């Protein structure tokens, strides 16, 4: 038997992401028909100290074998090191901060989603390949934002017209949009997760600015697109998964998820689904009490991911293809359509620092 503790954000702002991860995860579990996997779900309220407490609780009193669920990098940084140090496994369904991919990597930590830089770097590479020469980059002033800009620049390699940091949680972007309009950039890349991205895109589209936009999927995912509406049409965004990706099992996943929860799945739902699949495959191959065997089974990643082929690099982060998607309208629904690969067999650059 495997006992899984899931710490994720289920209340307050950002709850949508946690709910998608949870729903995707539980869907996979249900479809597998396995009754030897028990899941305990806890709400971290997006507060690091609460997440730490919950991790303690799950490890100390629930005695779980595996933890998963955390959405945000800062919460992951607070929880993962101590959990893995206590010999538990941690499967990340979302956040992939560079520290955990590099110097802070751990044999019991597996990232099933992506390393944080992946989308940004792939977007940079795509923009360069697409012929853009000069990029305007925009992100909130916090570590993930700084990483996003660094990642994009690494992939892009071209000239940067301006690099602007906004306040975290900012809601009005008139000032930044004016700067964009005044610049001579030929592509705009921005990383503004959640509500920030919605506000920005709505304001951008009404401003008369004409610089084409690229972003990471976080700002254009299914949960958000409904709120941005037509303003997002035509925007390109990078993701490791898309609902129209033609790989075995994906169409079934999309159909069953839509049917069960009455909404289209997001990347987070896909990530939760894959995380569960990984867990199921490993626990079928090895007993969780035999840590080495279980770890090897996880590393093998012997399951059919809805993103298609992928494998774990030595730092236990995925090597996978990052795709470019475009926001389109299907009937009344604004959604994403696959454009093509942006970076094939992408592996993050931090693995070299990982000694395990």
């Amino acid at each position: 038997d495997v006992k899984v503790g899931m710490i994720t954000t289920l209340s307050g702002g950002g709850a949508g992401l946690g709910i998608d991860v949870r729903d995707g995860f539980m869907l996979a579990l249900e479809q597998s028909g396995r009754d030897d996997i028990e899941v305990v779900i806890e709400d971290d309220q997006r507060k690091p100290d609460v997440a730490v407490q919950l991790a303690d609780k799950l490890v100390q009193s629930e005695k779980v074998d595996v933890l998963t669920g955390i959405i945000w990098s800062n919460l992951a940084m607070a929880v993962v090191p101590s959990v893995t140090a206590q010999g538990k496994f941690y499967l990340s369904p979302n956040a992939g901060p560079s520290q955990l991919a590099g110097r802070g990597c751990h044999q019991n930590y597996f990232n099933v989603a992506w390393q944080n830089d992946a989308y940004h770097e792939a977007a940079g590479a795509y923009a360069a390949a697409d012929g853009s020469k000069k990029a305007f980059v925009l992100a909130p002033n916090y570590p993930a934002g700084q990483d996003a800009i660094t990642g994009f620049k690494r992939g892009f390699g071209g000239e940067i017209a301006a690099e602007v940091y906004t306040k975290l949680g900012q809601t009005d972007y008139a000032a930044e949009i004016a700067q964009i309009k005044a610049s001579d950039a030929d592509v705009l890349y921005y990383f503004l997760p959640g509500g920030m991205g919605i506000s920005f895109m709505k304001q951008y589209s009404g401003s008369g600015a004409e610089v084409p936009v690229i972003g990471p999927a976080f700002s254009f995912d299914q949960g958000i697109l409904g709120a941005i509406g037509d303003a997002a049409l035509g925007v390109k965004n990078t993701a490791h998964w898309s609902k129209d990706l033609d790989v075995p099992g994906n169409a079934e996943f999309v159909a069953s998820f839509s049917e069960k929860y009455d909404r289209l799945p997001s990347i987070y739902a896909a990530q939760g689904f894959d995380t569960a699949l990984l867990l199921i495959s490993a626990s079928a191959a090895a007993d969780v009490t035999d840590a080495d065997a279980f770890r090897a089974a996880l590393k093998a990643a012997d399951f059919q991911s809805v993103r298609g082929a992928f494998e774990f690099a030595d730092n236990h982060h995925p090597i996978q293809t990052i795709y470019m998607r475009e926001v389109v309208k299907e009937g009344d629904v604004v959604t994403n359509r696959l454009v093509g690969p942006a970076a094939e067999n992408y592996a993050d650059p931090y693995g070299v620092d990982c000694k395990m």
Partner: protein
Amino acid sequence: MRLSREAVFNLVVLAGLVALPLYAHLSDAPFTITLATRAVILSLAAVGLNIALGIGGLVSLGHAVFFGVGGYAMGILAFHAQNYTPLMEWPFVIEGTKSMPVIWLVAVVASALVALGIGLLSLRTSGVYFIMITLAFGQMFYYFTISWSAYGGEDGMSIYVRNGFPGLNTLVPVQFYGLCFTLLCAALAFNAVLLRSPFGLALNAARQVPERVRAVGLDPFRLRLVAFAISGAITGLAGALFADLNRFVSPTMFSWQLSGEFIVFIIIGGTARLFGPVVGAVLFVALEHFLGGMSDYWHIWFGLLLLGVVLFGKGGLIGLIAGRGRVHD
């Protein structure tokens, strides 16, 4: 000596805080101890605030600043110690440390100094303006640490091993709990003595009639400033402990919601009660824990409960249980 109902109640609370973790320790429920430690540390933070708020009437919506300063004092010292990098090389070398007493001292001194600085500027205002200016300072610190990349920015810092205390194994939950509980008792004892001291009398009067206090030759501003610094120092100490409990610090320690929660503890427990912050924090932590598991929408129930306490439980929980009381005799 006959004890008042409130005193009896306080003793029961203390006894509970001793008995519960011991029981949890014996029945091997370490998480219960962790939870109790969290409650005790938050109590300590609120006891600190209660000195400014309960006696001095200074409703600070920025007390998380001191909590955060204490937390970062721990985080920075331990971070340098675990990376073997000196904190400062010029004009003289300062090394990081993993020793709790040293960290506590630094946390207390640093937060007292910050409180003095903030107090000097903000104690010129009063009422809602004071509430808001302390909030403003809280937000400044919050945004500053979010973008302070040297120490992790919004991600904060993880400290892998809990800091040490001579003669104790702080990794054993119950021992760390004992340490925190002792500090809480010390702070409560100090608060009790302070209430009856000349300083307490003068500060209490300065809240009610500053004009009168001036007219007898005392300066309310200085009284408040000293109270604010003491208050900040105690909350700062709690911050250092909190960081050690989680082995983690981040800018959320500065957030205004946390400042608000400190105030909530005090009101739930009962304003101007010695044990108000303790009762409030314990109840809050317990509710957060038990309601949190019940439903995704548990905040609604929690909100309704808070509303009930404010609307119908004048004098907070202690008021409900122990009846109308007074701080002074």
